[in-house]
C-alpha cells in the first residue's frame, strides 16, 4: 500500500480524534446529543441528559464526517475506502485511549469537576454509552464503521451517474426557466419587480402580527444588527479602516436615548424621536472626535486605537466618576418608547415595524452611497490609499466621512435598542458587540447587503432561537470563522461589482431604436 496515503490518513484521523477529545472535555457532545434529540422530536428537560441512542447518532455523524473528509477526491474508490478505514481506526484508537482514562476516573470516583468545570460523571457515562470500559470498544466499531460509510457515501454521491443525474436536474431547471421566461407576458417582466416588492412589503406588514412576541424580539434584534452591520461595512469594508470599537458609537446612541428619555437620573423626557436624532448626532460627534486624531493611522494601529476607544467609553459609562450622570454600572431603566398618533407604540411587534423601516432606509442609503462618487472614492482609498490620493481623492475627508456615516447608523441602532429593551447599561456595549458585528460582515459577505442580512441571521438570529448552544456560542463562532476563512473567504453571499458598461450599452440600445433590439438580451 501507498505509504503516503497511510500517513496522511493517520494524520487526519489523529486530528479528528484530538478534536473529539476536546469536544468531550467541554461537554459539547452532550449538548449536541440534546439538540439532535430535540430535532428528532424527543424533548429533553433542561438539566437532564438525552437518551443513549442520540449520543450514538452524534458519534455516527461525526464518523461520517471523518470518512467524508478523509477520502480524498482524486483517489480511486478502493483507496478512498482505505483512507477512511485508517482515519476511522485512528480516531477510534485515540478516543479509545481517552475512554479508558475517563473510565478509570469514574471507577476510582475522582471528582472530575474539580479540574474540568463542564465534565460530570453522568455525562462521561453517557459518552461511554452507559457501558463503562466496554464503551471504548463500541466507539471503535462506531467510528470505523461510520467512517467507512462516509467514504461510501462520498463515492456514491460523487460518482459519474450521480453527477450526471444532478447535471440533468440543472439542465431541466434551466430549460424550464427559459420556457417560462418565453411565455411570460411582457407586463410581468416589466412590473414583476414591483410586484415582488409589494409582496415583500405586505408580508413584512402582516407577518409580525402573526408571530409571537419572542419571534418579533429576535427579528428586531436581527434588524438592528443589519443596521449596525451596514454602518460598520461603510467604515471597514468600503473605506478600509479596521475599526474594533464600533460598540462605542452604539453606546452613544443608546445612552443619548436613555439620558434624554427616562425618568432617572435626569428626567428630561424629551420624547423618543428627538432623543433618537440627538443620539445619531452624538455618535457622529464621537466619530469626529475619534477620527481627527487617528486619520493618519491604518491597519493594526488603527485597530488598536479604536479598540481602546470602545473600551474607554464603556468604562467611563461604568465609572464611579460619572455615576450621577450615567447611572453607573446599574444602567438606566424605564426608557420610554415612542408614541404615534397619541398611541403608545412600544410592544415588540411595534418595534419590529420601526426597525424594519429604519433597516430598509439604511439599506437604501447604503446602496445609493455605494454607487456614487463618494462610494467609489472610499473603495479606491481601501484598495490603495496612496494611489487614490494621487488620483485626486482627498483621503482625510473621505475617511472621516465614512467614519461619521458609519457611526450615524450605529447611533440610530443604539437609540432604538435602548428604547426597545427599556434599559441600557455598560454591559450592553462590551467589546463582544463590536466583534459580533465584524463577524457578521466576515461570515455574511463583504460589501453585500444580502450577505449582511444572512450574516445577521446566522450569528444573531440562530443563537437566539437555539438557546441550547448558548454556552458554546464563542466556540461555534470561532469554528465558523475559521471554516469560512478556509472554504468561503468571500462570505456566504459575496458581493459583485456592477456591470456599468453593459448596463449603459443596454440603456442606449433601449433608447435609440424603438422597434428592434430593446426587449432582447
Amino acid at each position, binding site marked *: 500500500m501507498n505509504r503516503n496515503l497511510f500517513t496522511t490518513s493517520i494524520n487526519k484521523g489523529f486530528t479528528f480524534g484530538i478534536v473529539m477529545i476536546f469536544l468531550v472535555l467541554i461537554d459539547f457532545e452532550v449538548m449536541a446529543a440534546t439538540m439532535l434529540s430535540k430535532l428528532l422530536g424527543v424533548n429533553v428537560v433542561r438539566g437532564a441528559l438525552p437518551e443513549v441512542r442520540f449520543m450514538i447518532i452524534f458519534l455516527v455523524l461525526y464518523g461520517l464526517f471523518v470518512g467524508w473528509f478523509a477520502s480524498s477526491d482524486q483517489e480511486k474508490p478502493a483507496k478512498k475506502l482505505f483512507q477512511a478505514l485508517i482515519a476511522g481506526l485512528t480516531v477510534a484508537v485515540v478516543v479509545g485511549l481517552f475512554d479508558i482514562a475517563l473510565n478509570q476516573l469514574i471507577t476510582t470516583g475522582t471528582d472530575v469537576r474539580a479540574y474540568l468545570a463542564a465534565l460530570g460523571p453522568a455525562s462521561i457515562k453517557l459518552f461511554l454509552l452507559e457501558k463503562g470500559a466496554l464503551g471504548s470498544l463500541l466507539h471503535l466499531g462506531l467510528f470505523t464503521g461510520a467512517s467507512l460509510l462516509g467514504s461510501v457515501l462520498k463515492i456514491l454521491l460523487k460518482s459519474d451517474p450521480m453527477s450526471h443525474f444532478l447535471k440533468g436536474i440543472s439542465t431541466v431547471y434551466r430549460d424550464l426557466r427559459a420556457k417560462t421566461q418565453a411565455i411570460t407576458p411582457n407586463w410581468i417582466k416589466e412590473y414583476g419587480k414591483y410586484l415582488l416588492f409589494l409582496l415583500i412589503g405586505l408580508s413584512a406588514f402582516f407577518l409580525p402580527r402573526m408571530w409571537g412576541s419572542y419571534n418579533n424580539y429576535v427579528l428586531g434584534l436581527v434588524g438592528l444588527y443589519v443596521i449596525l452591520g451596514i454602518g460598520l461595512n461603510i467604515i471597514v469594508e468600503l473605506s478600509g479602516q479596521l475599526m474594533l470599537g464600533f460598540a462605542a458609537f452604539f453606546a452613544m446612541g443608546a445612552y443619548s436615548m436613555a439620558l434624554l428619555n427616562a425618568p432617572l437620573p435626569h428626567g428630561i423626557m424629551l420624547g423618543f424621536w428627538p432623543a433618537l436624532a440627538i443620539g445619531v448626532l452624538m455618535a457622529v460627534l464621537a466619530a469626529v472626535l475619534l477620527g481627527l486624531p487617528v486619520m493618519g493611522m491604518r491597519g493594526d494601529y488603527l485597530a488598536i486605537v479604536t479598540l481602546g476607544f470602545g473600551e474607554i467609553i464603556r468604562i467611563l459609562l461604568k465609572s464611579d466618576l460619572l455615576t450621577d450622570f450615567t447611572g453607573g454600572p446599574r444602567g438606566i431603566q424605564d426608557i420610554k418608547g415612542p408614541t404615534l398618533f397619541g398611541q403608545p407604540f412600544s410592544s415588540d411587534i411595534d418595534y419590529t415595524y420601526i426597525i424594519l423601516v429604519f433597516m430598509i432606509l439604511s439599506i437604501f442609503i447604503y446602496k445609493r452611497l455605494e454607487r456614487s462618487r463618494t*462610494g467609489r472614492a472610499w473603495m479606491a482609498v481601501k*484598495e490603495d490609499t496612496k*494611489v487614490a490620493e*494621487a488620483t485626486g*481623492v482627498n483621503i482625510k475627508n473621505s475617511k472621516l466621512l465614512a467614519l461619521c456615516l458609519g457611526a450615524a447608523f450605529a447611533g440610530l441602532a443604539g437609540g432604538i435598542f435602548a428604547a426597545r429593551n427599556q434599559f441600557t447599561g455598560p454591559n450592553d456595549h462590551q467589546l463582544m458587540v463590536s466583534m459580533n458585528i465584524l463577524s457578521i460582515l466576515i461570515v455574511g459577505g463583504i460589501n453585500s447587503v444580502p450577505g449582511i442580512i444572512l450574516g445577521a441571521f446566522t450569528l444573531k438570529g440562530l443563537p437566539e432561537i437555539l438557546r441550547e448552544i448558548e454556552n458554546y456560542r464563542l466556540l461555534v463562532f470561532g469554528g465558523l470563522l475559521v471554516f469560512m476563512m478556509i472554504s468561503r473567504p468571500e462570505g456566504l453571499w459575496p458581493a459583485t461589482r456592477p456591470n456599468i*458598461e453593459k448596463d*449603459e450599452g443596454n440603456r442606449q440600445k433601449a433608447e435609440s431604436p424603438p422597434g428592434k433590439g430593446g426587449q432582447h438580451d
Partner: protein
Amino acid sequence: MTDTIIQIKNVCKIFGGLIAVNQVNIDVPEKYIYSIIGPNGAGKTTLFNCITGFYIPEKGEILFYGDPIQGLSTNLVAWLGLSRTYQNIRLFTNLTAVENILIGLHPNLKSSWFDAIVHTRSFIKEESGSVKEALRLLDYVGLKGYGDFLAKNLPYGLQRRLEIGRALANQPKVLLLDEPTAGMNLHETAEATHFIKRLRDELGITIILIEHDMKVVMGISDRISVLDYGMKIAEGNAAEIQANPRVIEAYLGPGGAALSEKYKKQRQSYAQSHRS
C-alpha cells in the same frame, strides 16, 4: 519656443545618507514629450515622486506654470493637472475597469454624499455624464468591451492602458509615464509608442517619460535628460544624447565610450563584409 510648463529648480531629495536626487534642473516646455533616462537607481522615479507630491524635496523648487507645487499634497497636485502612472502597475485591482476610470474622474466632479443619497437632479446629470465620459475614455485607450472586467483579471498590456486611461480621466495637462512599455514585446512596444505620440498630438498633453527602451526614447522624445547617481549628466535631443560620452560611460562604465566605438566599428565592418 513655447512656454515652460514644468520647471525643476535645484531639486534635492535625500534619504538618510543617500542623495537620491542631487541638484537637478529641468525645464519641460509645453506639449513636449520629455524623456528622463538613466541606469537603474539613478533617481528617475524619485524625481517623479517629488513632482507628484509623494515626496517633499529637501531643497529646490518645482514650478508648474511658474507657481511652486513642491510640498502640496498629492490630491491637490492631481487636481492641478499632473497625473501619473506607476512603474509597477497600481490599479484598484478589485474594482472594474470602468470604475477605475470613474475614480480618475473624481477631482473634476462635484456631487457630495448628500446628493448621492437623495439623488438630486445635478447628481443624476453628473453621474450619467461621468459614466459616458468613462466609457469614451475606455474606448480611447482601446479597452472597449473590457469595461466590466475586474482590473486584476485584465491582461498585462491592457492593465498598462487602463492605468493611462485612469490618468487621462483626471484631464491632466502633464502626464508622467513611468516605464510604460516595461515587459512588453516588440509589437506591443511599437503600439504603445504610437499611442503615447497620439496622446500628445491629439490631446495636447505634455508628457514626461521614464523609459529604458532606447528605441522608444530615441523615437518619440523631443528632448531627453540623463540622470546618473541623482545628478543630471546630460540634456539634449536624441542625436546629442547618443553622441554624449558621459552618457555612454554612465551606461557602460568607465572606458565605455571607447568600447562602444570599438563595437560600432566592428559592427560596421561586419555589415560591410556581409554586403560584399
